[in-house]
């Protein structure tokens, strides 16, 4: 099976995750306009990658596992992306049909 990461690695990842939690908390108090949500999501994404790659040990796992882990997010993007193909273009319509 796979190589076993050291306790030290796990603790470093944990520390990073905790720090990022506080970073995301404090960044939210700073006015960045539309960037607030972008930064929040980027941090969340970064944290997620840490959990997936190290805690779930996907980094050392087979390409198949990576493929399946990636497929989930790909499909999530399909779902969201296609919702927004509708919602973002509704206002382009000549009649104001949005309420």
């Amino acid at each position, binding site marked *: 099976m796979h190589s076993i990461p050291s306790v030290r690695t796990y603790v470093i990842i944990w520390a990073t995750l905790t720090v990022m939690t506080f970073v995301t908390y404090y960044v939210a108090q700073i006015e960045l306009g539309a960037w607030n949500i972008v930064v*929040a999501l980027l941090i969340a994404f970064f944290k*997620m990658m840490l959990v997936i790659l190290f805690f779930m040990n996907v980094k050392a796992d087979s390409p198949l596992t990576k493929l399946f882990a990636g497929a989930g997010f790909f499909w999530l993007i399909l779902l969201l992306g296609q919702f927004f193909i509708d919602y973002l273009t509704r206002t382009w319509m000549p009649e104001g049909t949005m309420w």
Partner: protein
Amino acid sequence: MADTHSTVAEHSEPDHTAHSPHLRHHFDDMAQQFDSATLGMWVFLLTEIMFFGGMFGAYTVYRAMYPEAFASSSQYMNPLYGAMNTAVLIVSSLTMALAVRAARLGEQKVLQLFLILTMIFGLAFLVIKGFEYHEHWVDNKVPLFGGHWDYSEAPQFARQAQILFCFYFFMTGFHALHMVVGLGLMTTIFMMARRGTFSPSYFTPVEVSGLYWHFVDIVWIFLFPLLYLIGRTKKLI
């Protein structure tokens, strides 16, 4: 394929089963069984991603539609609770990862210790969540039961804010449900560990439950900024 059977593998089944009492009959060896189980859990997590994904999708649509109403209702959430819970879950993920590590190395006592710690942090999460729900109830911010709802501080958002609160309760509720299931898994694994079921050659249930636990953690990592940290710089209520 007609003649493919002409060569036949002399199957050494008795040897395999002799190796481990945990090998099920339809698998060839432990590696195949372990790989199948972990792949199975990943496929299950794929399903879970889409399950929460449906809610995240609907949430995103409404948030884009009513950004201010969403921001206003976020101000009724206590981000300290959210941050605390995030921290608690991250610690539990650490202990879970260490439990899996211990199982792999065959350190039985360490495994049991970390499983207990994981359960304690998991419970702590639910307790904090419970306090939070209680506050919303007292605050009249629960549109779910047709009663406890009062949004007179910001009447312009009164109707649409219900949508965010609905999502808040559905998403955190389903997440809490997953935590409860996770705690059930942990209890089972702990009992198995106490009976000495696991060894460096058989720790599949620990590994698989660990994957599930980390996934539930990841969901919360996204819920935290999406529910608690909208428009915190503005005064909307």
